């Protein structure tokens, strides 16, 4: 009926061509991270060769002009803000997604989801600005000075919450409807269904969400830079101003030269290492959980 011999001759090369094109594009995408690591290392080599890695943790202080490169206070700053915000944002984000799927009346579902989507897209600099003009003065009234670890944690929480909420939302949406109908048929109440059926099914998606938000918390720069006070010190209370690794780079990169510049690349490398460790840990744990 339809003679498509010519089509056939023409079509197979198309499939092959497409496949090779896609492979090329994917290779570029895959190589970006390699490039990043290579360039970070290349930029840090000078300082690592004549200062050495251990001095970044043992020097008396961070005074790059005088040749002191202690990164530990900034490392603590990063870890504290990250831990605090992830601890608060994870339950809030997951509950948010659960609200959308299982609790919200249909009329609220869409607006609420839109709200979260909108928030996921709001620039960190906006959060930072709001934190600077609203949150910081508020905290300053409770316990001066205001710019502090606490304000950093709070701002970061608000920022990463949409990330986990959207990821959780997506993975809840992937829970097959017939599981839910099955649970309903067994007469399971709502929370029991969520705990017993939804969480186990959506586990890996939720976990990815947590990893993503943790990464975002570690890497966040601007908002933190704007609300944390940027004093290089290991905080002793929630109200102490701090400086994170990321803020340090942003603050000093514009005038750093030579060893100082390389030292900032070292902090970049430290950040990368943290992220890589996080990714690997995530993979390890999720593999154990999913297949174990």
């Amino acid at each position: 009926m339809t003679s498509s011999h010519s089509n056939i001759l023409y079509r197979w090369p198309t499939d092959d061509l497409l496949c090779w094109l896609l492979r090329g594009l994917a290779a570029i995408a895959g190589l970006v991270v390699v490039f990043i690591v290579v360039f970070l290392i290349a930029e840090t080599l000078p300082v690592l060769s004549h200062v050495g890695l251990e001095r970044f943790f043992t020097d008396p202080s961070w005074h790059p002009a005088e040749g002191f490169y202690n990164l530990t206070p900034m490392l603590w700053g990063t870890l504290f803000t990250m831990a605090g915000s992830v601890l608060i944002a994870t339950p809030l984000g997951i509950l948010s997604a659960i609200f959308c799927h299982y609790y919200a009346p249909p009329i609220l579902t869409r607006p609420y989801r839109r709200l979260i989507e909108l928030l996921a897209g709001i620039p960190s600099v906006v959060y930072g600005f709001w934190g600077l003009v609203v949150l910081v003065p508020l905290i300053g009234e409770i316990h001066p000075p205001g710019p502090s670890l606490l304000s950093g944690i709070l701002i970061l929480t608000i920022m990463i919450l949409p990330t986990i909420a959207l990821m959780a939302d997506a993975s809840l949406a992937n829970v097959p409807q017939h599981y839910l109908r099955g649970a309903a048929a067994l007469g399971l109440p709502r929370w029991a269904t969520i705990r017993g059926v939804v969480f186990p099914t959506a586990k890996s998606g939720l976990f990815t969400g947590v990893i993503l938000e943790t990464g975002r918390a570690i890497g966040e720069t601007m908002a933190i830079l704007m609300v944390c006070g940027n004093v290089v010190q290991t905080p002793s209370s929630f109200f102490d101003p701090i400086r994170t690794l990321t803020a340090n780079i942003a603050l000093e990169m514009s005038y750093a030269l030579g060893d100082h510049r390389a030292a900032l690349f070292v902090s970049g490398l430290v950040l990368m290492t943290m992220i890589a460790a996080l990714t690997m840990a995530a993979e390890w744990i999720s593999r154990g959980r999913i297949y174990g």
Partner: protein
Amino acid sequence: MRPADVHTKPHPLYPTDEQPSAAVPAPLIHVNNLSLHYGDRPAFQDVTLSIGPGGITALVGPSGCGKTSFLTALNRLTDLIPGCRVTGEIRIENLDVLAPQTDVIRLRRLVGMIFQKPNPFPLSIQNNLSFPLREHGLRDPVQIAHTTETVLQGVGLWDEVKDRLDSPALALSGGQQQRLCIARALALSPAVLLMDEPCSALDPLSSGLVEDLIVNLRGRYMVVIVTHNLAQARRIADAAAFFWVQDGTGRLIETGTARQLFEAPRDALTAAYISGMRG
């Protein structure tokens, strides 16, 4: 009789009563020593079988005996399943199905397939039919419209949908969707139609309609149908092949005309399975 004896002598399966034996053409599908593995797990092994044109051949047997896998090997849908390995030989007309240089697209036009669950594309009814036609090089809108009408009439769907060809195919009922899928396959005028339990996901009424339709296809297409419904197989099939699980893998136990296989099975396993259905 041991299954091995069956394998050594493939039984050509000819349409039974209606056709005079003198006019019997050569078998269309030759399967020789065919095995299929998913990774290390065999789905079926050493199947040797010939199927003649024009009739309806039913593949029967319990779940997990490799009937569906066998069907998907015939049009190389197995290519799409990661880790799936097919060995042996399949010939359809003059085409060496498993040869790497075989044009899969030509093969799949020659061998249409209907799935257990109706699977129309998320397009309009019209486009479900015309999109594959266009992709196979039919550009003339008049001809496309003609083919659409012919195949829809062929599956008895024309009167039901002629006024709403532009509405989404997914809005049709399950039975209508399945008939649309059959029409979609027929539009490409295949020689062989593979059907994987085409009625089992449908309600009895739709199932009956589709079954009538399959009977109507007899003589014009060669139909190979997998079914769990032995009563249905008896009603519609000209020839039948019985699969069974032995040592964790599917085996072809017995082939023959439908009448012979259902009324006077030669193999004890077949007899037990058939009588189980009776009892």
